[in-house]
Every structure is written in structure tokens, then in C-alpha cells.
């Protein structure tokens, strides 16, 4: 993969990378100039051809979503998702903090293509620096005429502002984010209608993760074919992988989709810490099913991970070495989800707590006969019965840990102690 040229992170290591001057000096806003001279439909076609899929977790084809935006609606909105709450994921943070203008460009082009004149940025409340940089970047973009009325003389208008979240993971789910943007509690909405039909304030709304948007200027500048030339059959383009856990060099790595997990862990992240052996990897953020060490040759792509029962998610790779107790890992992850359930629907609100309680007692050596079966039944009761996709997500840690490390659970139950750390 030596020919791969990082584009999403090309600016992030420059000094003053977040400043508009730096961005402009390195060819910034060229894509905007080009796009504003194109027909909106041409851009949508281009994004479709590029094969770009959403980077926020669900991997929905971006161009198709743009096509869903009604042509005739008088008012439309672009909502920019910078909530980044998925544990293990810290790619969006790097983008806003170090290269916010690349996203602004993506938003301008997307808004122009779907005919939206208003954009709202939703940002995780704890991203203090990110909030500051977003606001500064937007102000500078206005000053340079990239936002506001008649952008670059094209006749196209776009206003953009920032809204801070208040610390709920669920507010990253697109409809909960819309509720929160409207000033309400962040509870997901019933779908359909989808945001493209009825979104923010009842208006058609295009929701994107910021990494998805950051890809857009490059597609415009280098062409859909360039983008589609990177990656696998169904997963195109560059991707930032956030690597964390028991590796020597945790961090963000921009690599082509389709790169193997092994390459990410051993070549880019410097291998496992302290010379220990790898035990398990979560490939796409806390909500994606974990994989055992022997499956790390899988290419990091939507379709290949799906084929082995996991998901690409946000591409956040969480690495666990042999010293990790998988019961503890599952318990800790489940605790996160139980804490973050919005509480709107029964199986997530109560099922998540029940899952946590069972995992907790198994870990404490107080598990009972039948607890493993009960865990799986409870998973069954949550998956597919919840209001929003959170239910399907929250069962993944427990279910995948049992699938690959069942003996560890059984050992906890039989011996009332942990086979890994002895406690």
C-alpha cells in the first residue's frame, strides 16, 4: 500500500493546520470553486459514482442519500454530525480540531448539491477545543465569502452555525441529534419518516458524519474515479482508523479501506504493547462485535467484516491483549450502553441494565448456573425489539464475547474466579 496518499489527514500535521490561511495556502477551497460551477445533479451523480459510504457507522451510500432529498422543497438543511460518542473513536475530533475547513468545504458542496441554504453543526459538548475551532473556522469562512450570501458570486447562499451537545451518546444517532438540535431531550424519533423527508424543524435534512463530508472536496478535485479506485468492491476511498488499546502507537491512521486489521495493528500501530500476544479486536467502535486474534487478516471493509459477523462501524480499532478478561470487557462495554440508553423504549432501558447485572455477577464470581443461557436469551430479547438501532448495538459486546470466548465465561461460572487475572 505504499502508493496510498493520505488526503483526509494531509493537513493535520502542519503547524497552524486549523487556520484558514494554512488551508488556503495548501489549495483549500478549490473544490468549492469547482463545485459551484457544476450542476447540482452532476455533483450528486459524481458522489454516487465515487462509491462513498457514510463514515458515521451505518455505511449508507452518500450519493443515494443525497438523491433522497426532495428537489422541490423550498427549505432544506444539512446537519453535520460531530457528536463522536462511540467509544474508541477519535477521528472526528482530529478533523475538527486540526482541519475544520475541509469539512466546511464538504458541507458547502453537499448543501449546494441538495439545495440546502442552512447548515447546523452538532458537536459533542466535551470537545471544548473543537467547539472553539468550529466557531472560528465558520467565522473565517464567512469573512472570506465561503459562507453567507452569494458565495463566490455563484448566487448560492449558505448559513452555518454550531450547537453543542450535552454529553449523551445517543445524541449521535441522527434523529436524536435532530431532537437535541431542536432543543428537546435527545430521544431518537420514529423512522420513517427519514430525515431526508422530515428532519430538523420538519424540513428535509441531510445528515452526515464529518469524515464523510471531509471526503467530498477530494472527490470533486480528483474525481469520482480516483476515489472509487481506492478500496474494495463495496468499500471505497480513504478512511481514518482510530486505533486504541494495548498497542504501542495508538492514534489515527488514514489508510485505504480494505487494509487488513493485521496491517493496522502491527505495521501502523506498532504491534502489541510489552510484547504480549493479541487476544481480541473490536474493529469498528464499541458497538461492533469483537473478533478473536485469529481473524485479523480480514480486510477492513463493510462487506468483509459483515461476512465474518462483525461491522466496520466507525473504523475504530480497539485492541485487547492476552491480559484482558473478556467477561470484564463485555461488562464494562455493556455498562456504557446501559448508562447511555435514552430510556425511551423498554428493552433497551431495562434490558441493558439486566445484561449488565448478569455480566457483573459473573465477573464477581457470583454467577449462577444458567446465567450464560440467560445472557443469550436477554440478548435475544433486546436485539430486534428496540425503537432505534441502539438495541442491536448494545448487545454486541456480550454476544460477541460469548461467541468467541465462551470458555472464559464458563470458567468464571464454574470456578467463581477469573481464569485470566486470577481474581
Amino acid at each position: 500500500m505504499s502508493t496510498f496518499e493520505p488526503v483526509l489527514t494531509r493537513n493535520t500535521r502542519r503547524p497552524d493546520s486549523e487556520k484558514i490561511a494554512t488551508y488556503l495556502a495548501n489549495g483549500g477551497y478549490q473544490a468549492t470553486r469547482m463545485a459551484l460551477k457544476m450542476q447540482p445533479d452532476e455533483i450528486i451523480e459524481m458522489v454516487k459514482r465515487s462509491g462513498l459510504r457514510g463514515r458515521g457507522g451505518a455505511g449508507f451510500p452518500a450519493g443515494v442519500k443525497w438523491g433522497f432529498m426532495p428537489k422541490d422543497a423550498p427549505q432544506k438543511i444539512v446537519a453535520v454530525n460531530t457528536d463522536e460518542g462511540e467509544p474508541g473513536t477519535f477521528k472526528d475530533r482530529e478533523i475538527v480540531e486540526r482541519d475544520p475547513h475541509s469539512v466546511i468545504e464538504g458541507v458547502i458542496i453537499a448543501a449546494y448539491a441538495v439545495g440546502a441554504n442552512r447548515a447546523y453543526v452538532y458537536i459533542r459538548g466535551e470537545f471544548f477545543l473543537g467547539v472553539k475551532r468550529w466557531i472560528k473556522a465558520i467565522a473565517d469562512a464567512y469573512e472570506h465569502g465561503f459562507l453567507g450570501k452569494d458565495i463566490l458570486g455563484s448566487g448560492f447562499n449558505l448559513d452555518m452555525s454550531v450547537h453543542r451537545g450535552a454529553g449523551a451518546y445517543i445524541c449521535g444517532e441522527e434523529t436524536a441529534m435532530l431532537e437535541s438540535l431542536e432543543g428537546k431531550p435527545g430521544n431518537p424519533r420514529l423512522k420513517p419518516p427519514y430525515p431526508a423527508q422530515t428532519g430538523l424543524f420538519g424540513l428535509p435534512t441531510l445528515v452526515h458524519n464529518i469524515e464523510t463530508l471531509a471526503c467530498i472536496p477530494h472527490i470533486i478535485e480528483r474525481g469520482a474515479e480516483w476515489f472509487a479506485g481506492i478500496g474494495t468492491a463495496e468499500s471505497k476511498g480513504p478512511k481514518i482508523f482510530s486505533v486504541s488499546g494495548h498497542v504501542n502507537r495508538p492514534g489515527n491512521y488514514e489508510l485505504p479501506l480494505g487494509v487488513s486489521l493485521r496491517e493496522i495493528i502491527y505495521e501502523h500501530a506498532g504491534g502489541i504493547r510489552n510484547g504480549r500476544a493479541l487476544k481480541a479486536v473490536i474493529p469498528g467502535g464499541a458497538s461492533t462485535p469483537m473478533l478473536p486474534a485469529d481473524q485479523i487478516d480480514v480486510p477492513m471493509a463493510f462487506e468483509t467484516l459483515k461476512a465474518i459477523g462483525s461491522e466496520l462501524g466507525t473504523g475504530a480499532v480497539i485492541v485487547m491483549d492476552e491480559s484482558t478478561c473478556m467477561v470484564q470487557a463485555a461488562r464494562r462495554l455493556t455498562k456504557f450502553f446501559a448508562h447511555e440508553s435514552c430510556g425511551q423504549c423498554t428493552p433497551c432501558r431495562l434490558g441493558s441494565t439486566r445484561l449488565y447485572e448478569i455480566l457483573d455477577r459473573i465477573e464477581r464470581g457470583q454467577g449462577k448456573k444458567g446465567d450464560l443461557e440467560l445472557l443469550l436469551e436477554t440478548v435475544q430479547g433486546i436485539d430486534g425489539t428496540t425503537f432505534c438501532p441502539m438495541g442491536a448495538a448494545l448487545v454486541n459486546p456480550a454476544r460477541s464475547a460469548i461467541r468467541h470466548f465462551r470458555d472464559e465465561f464458563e470458567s468464571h461460572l464454574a470456578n467463581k474466579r477469573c481464569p485470566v487475572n486470577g481474581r
Partner: protein
Amino acid sequence: MTELVTLSIDGKQVTVPKGTLVVDAAKQAGIDIPVFCYHPKMEPAGMCRMCLVELGRPMIDRATGQPVLENGQPKIQWAPKLETACTNVVSDGMVVLTRSEKARAGQQEILEFLLTSHPLDCPVCDKGGECPLQNLTLDYGPGKSRFLYNEKHHAEKHVPLGELIWLDRERCIQCGRCVRFQRLVAGEPVLAFDERGRDTEIITNSEPAFDSIFSGNTTDICPVGALTTADFRFGARPWELKSAASLCAQCPVGCNITFNTRREAKSGGRVVIKRVMPRQNEEVNEIWICDKGRFAYHFTESEARLRQPLIRRNGQLQPASWEEALDLAAAKLKAAGKDALILAGGRLSNEDLFNLKKLADGLGAQSVLYTHVGGGDLVTQIGLASGTNLADLGKGDTILVAACDLYEEAPIWWLRVKQAADRGATLIVVNARATRLDKHAGYVVRYAPGDETVTLQGLLKQDKIGAAIREAGNLLVFYAADGLDLNGSTSVAAACANLLIETGHFGRPNNGLIGVWPHANDQGAWEIGFRPEADLAAALKGKTVYIAAADPAGDDPRLAKALQDAGTVIVQELFQTATASLAEVVLPAAAYTEREGTFTSGERRVQRYYPAVPRWAETKADYVITAEIGQRLGLDLEAGAPALVFNRLTAEITAFAGLSYRKLAEVRPQWPIVGRADLYYGGTTYENKQGLGVHLAAAASAGESPHLPEVRKGSGPRPQEDALLAVPVTKLYDLGVTVRSSVLLEARIGLPAITIHPLTAEKMGLKAGEKAMIGLGGHENEVLVKLDETIPAGVALVPRSMGLPVSAPAPLSVGKAK
């Protein structure tokens, strides 16, 4: 024509209108799908996940657009996961399985989850016995929990959400029905969810807490015992209760209710009313009632009720036998002949009023209705008729509300008018001040006090408003006497009637005039021939007065004086009122809960109520007392069953022709289906098995052409330069005899208060919440001061029935409290 859709539910072919939700389609076909958060009166929320079913649709061939066949049958594409029946809309060929193994497993799972965090304190829970969670657990739940009891969640169990409603946080299953009811139905979004996840809890976010006059309804639709009324809480078990169909007697809407009663030791072995529940009548109150109706029934059981007849001896009212009292009353009336005057209140039933009218006619005496709202003769002509249902009004229709604070005067009409506006009806509110209806109105027209009639007359000349009235598909006009007296209200009624007649909006369903009367049966009194008297004090002069169900002396010192100057006063009452204290003879009447009868609502619907409890002490029903007096005068009055009185009434009064008790008791199937087996669906509202009532025929519908009534020329009383003008307004919770004995409502009744403009207050050196002395009608009273910047300067709103002598706009002086 509504388009129909056919689908299969559990193998049964079901045909329903397009757009129907699967859960409702099933209910219509007699198939139960368990629900908690869904309620047929509200948009689905999909939150509780109780209604999980397997759902499939015919597979469509993309190329041909035709269904794919398999063995000659359409191939079904099953949804990959269980679906919620409450959020999915039916489609042709859809297949729904509600009791398949997979569906049952899902339903069981949800119930088991709910129960893991439910206290299961059914033995002490008010809902026990009529609890959807209990019932659905038996029908759909697991026999046994796989989870541990000691992992149960604990939360606060006694949280007052206001004075009327208590919340048990542990029992709450977070279905959101209460929150959504307040937002979607009541339009008073004062409840909300706080926190998230397992900590999610219900809170009230208003000041005062749970500030809504519809709050009791949340206890009916709460599927568990989380919400209970302060009134019934720990009061009785549902299965100990008997029920009696009745009507709410607090306002002219005529809400159908059920009294739940029990004989109990702590009430001295008496049968007492334990609670008031709504009874379904989709054309009147749907399945709701307001809090006044729910909580202000205690007057019937007050120890202060009159127990036996009283006769004045040596200046003192002393107990007497019925014989003595009736003989005396009859003798006095006989002696007076046409110099008698019969004064009746709209709390009486049609039967009571009919007998009183016959008595008056027999004597050649005047029969006067005691009221401050005029124009009922116009309502009898162009009032509502059969086929009317406020729920039918929407886009293209117009509703005008004039000189009326519908929220305070007739809450359920307020609710239904608001909902019509939500559905797109144009709402025009015409008043001298802002009311709670304004925010739902398309047009708000303000007038200076005194200009009410000219303003109404000018409406047709206004561009948009004129068009909205003229071009309305249907036009309803509500009016009352906000800020006015009888005369003012009479001319408002005339102006409103003219609008309806000129634009041709009368004589057909959903069109016409509605008087927002102070009592449940004022309309009946008008229909039977009672008329108010513009100068009642003068009319009383020298008369022998027979007063039933009215307290003029308590309301107005001038009338008290007039009664002192009158001849003999005979009073028929529930309580020893100020008026009764002036009487020569006091006749104790039975409360309406203790007997049968009918009321005519403001919409001119005649409805029956049934006895709920035995008669109090020695009381008799009003119509019986009147008949027994009449018999002593040689008049043929019916003292038997009320049905017999009603038969005579229908034979004599044209509008009632053709009605009978049996007809009034007829029911038709109603939607949504509510009642015992369907508690989980519609709530604890009672099914109506005792009669939906029948509209009176309007003279205009019978082809009679109404005459254009004359409208008062010029203006009414206006504020003067240097004096405030006190104008009477109606308060929902006041000190009326039917309200004040309900201890629970004390805080809502509050102290007597006047409302003035902030500028007026500033001029007088008064602040909000302070006390002041007012001089009104020659009397001094201490009141609280409230401020409202929407009322005209120079005007003071003075509530009726709060012990302040305000029967008409009158000058008022305000000074600092001593």
C-alpha cells in the same frame, strides 16, 4: 368514499379504511394486540414495544410491479424483525401474526423486562383489579421471571405532582401516555420526562405543579398505578365498587360520567361516592372529563346538607314535617296566585323545571330563570341539532367564541374547540381580554368594554374574518357573558344569532348558536319556557317567591335586600344558603346523585342520569316536592317516576316531541372501544351502556325560519375617567355550592382576587399578590390583586361566586388593605 384495505390478522380477513394502524385494525376485528404506550386518542409513539407482531407484505416483482406468486398464493416478504403494530399502517395483502411463537416471545420479553423493575405492590395499589400491566401479564407475560428480585430498582413512591395527582415513580413504566396526553390532547404540556435510561422519570414543569384542568384523565390512561388521584388514592379497591351512570352537573357540556360507589363503615354504613370516572360519549366528552367534574362531587355528601323541612316560627327556622311545610308553601302560593313568582336555577333537571313551570302556569305566575347569560330563546331557534359532533369540525369550518372564557366556563368544549382548530378549523376569539383559547385562534379580536355588540356586528365587514364566517363550511358560535351582565350577554347573543342567520349557518348539523351557560341545564329551562328577568330585584317586589336551586341573596346583596322586601319566600335547596336563611319555608331537596332525571346540554342534547346513592336524610326530589305542592293547589302534577314527568313534558313541549327515556338510553357502537376487557387500550374510562342522549329538534331544522333578533343599540357600560369598572368573569373553581365542599380544590379555588392592568396597579400603588380593599355595590371586601396586561386599563376583572357582589359591570373603588 374512504379507500379500504384488506389484510389478514391471525388468519382473519380484515377490511379497514386506508391509513388505519395495524393495532386498531386488529381491535376492530376483535383481535387484541397488547399495548402500553399506544392510545387510540393519540399519535403512536412506538416506545414501549409491547405490541410486537410478525408482519409481512406481499413481495412485489420489481420488473412487473406485480405480486410474486408461490403455489398460486402471493409470496409474503416477512419483516426481518418483529414490528410494532402501533406504528405500522395497514396495506393491502399485509399479513400480521399476533400470537405466533416469535411474536409471543417478543411480547413476553417486554413484559418480563417491565416486571423486573416494577414493585409488584399490587395488594396496596389503587390500580390493582383494573390494571393493564396486571391484566396483560396474565395474558401475555411469562409465568415466572428469570431475573432476580433483589436487582429491582427502587424509586420514590409518594410524589405529589400537584394537589390532585400523586405519582409513584417505582410503578411508572415510562410509557409516556401522561406526557403525551398533556401535550397532544390537553394542549397543556406540563409533564415531561427527566433524566435518561433507567433513571427516566416523570416530572411536572409548571408552576403551580401539574397546572392543568384535565390532569385527572392521566390517571385513567396510565396503564399502571403510577398516577392516582389524591381523591381516590388508597380509598377503595376497584372490585368493591358499584357504578352508576350519570352526567356531570358542573357546566353545560354535559359530560357523561360514572359514579363509583361503595357502602362503607367509615362513612357510617352509608353508600358513598368514591370517585367520578368519565363515561364514553364520543359526541360529547369522548373519554375525558375535566378536573372540576372529577373532583367537585363532594357537595352531595356534605354534612351541611339540609336534612328536613324547616318552617319559620317566632322568627326562627325550625324543623317541621313534610306535611306542615308543603301545606304552608301551598297555602302561601295559593294566596298569592298570579302574584307568585317562581325562580329556578339551571341545576334542576328537565323534569323539575317542567313541574315548576306547570305550577307557575297553574297559578298564572311568572317563571323566571336565575342566570346571568341571556339569549337562550335564540338558541332554541338556531341552536344545535341532531348529527352535530364537534369532532367533525376541521378544515374549512369556522368556530367563533364571543364574550366567553371557554377554558374556565366549559373545559371540555375548550378542549374540543382547540382540537378542531388543531385539525384546521378557523377559530375566531372575540373578547375584551386575553383567554387561554387565544393561542389556538386564527384571529383574536379585542374590543373595549361596551363595544362587544358593535364589534360582533362589524365582523362580517372585516376582510379575512368576514370571509372565514361567510364561507365557513360549518359555523359554530359560542357565547357567554364574560365581563357582562344579563343585558350585555343578551345583546351579544342577538349579534351572534344575526351572524349565523345572515350567513345561513343554522338548521343543519354542526351549525348554530351555543350558550355557554353557568349551569348544566339552563338550556333545558329555556326550552321549557323559563326566561330570565332583566331587573330581578324589581320583579321580586311584593311577590310570594318560590326559589329552587338558586341563591340570589348569596350572590348579590341587592337581591338579598329585594327578598327581604318581598312577600313570603319559599326555598327549595340542598344547603342552608343565604337565600334559605331569608325563607319562611325551606324544602330540602335530594341531590341529583340520589335520583333519576335528564339534563339538556348547551348543545341541546338531552341526556339521562341515574341514581347513584340513596336519598340523603328526609330529602325529596325537586320535581316531587313541586308536584306535591301542586296537588295541594288542585293541579295535576306528576309525582311518580321521572320518566312519567318526562312523558308529559314531551307531549307538551314541541322541541322534546318524540323523545322518551328509552330513546335517551339507546347506544350505538363507539370508537375507540373502551371498558372492562379493553382497559389496556382506552384506559379506565367507562363504556357507555346507558345512553348517548338525543338532540332536541331545533325550530329552524323543522323549517321554521328564525327571525333576526334586534340587537341592542349603542354601547354597554364603559370605564369612567376616575373610577374602575368592575366586570364579572367566571372562574372554573369558585365558591359555588357545588364546588366549595371539595377540600381538595381549596388551593385551586384560592382567595377572592381582582385582576387589573399593571398600569392601573401602578397608579394605585398596588403590586401583584398584595391585598387590597375594594368597594363594590356599597360593600367593602378584602381581595388579592392580580395583574394582567391584556385587560383594558380602567377595568377590573371580578370573579363571580367568590363572595364578591358583582352581578353586572359596576363602578369599583380600590384602596390599600387595612
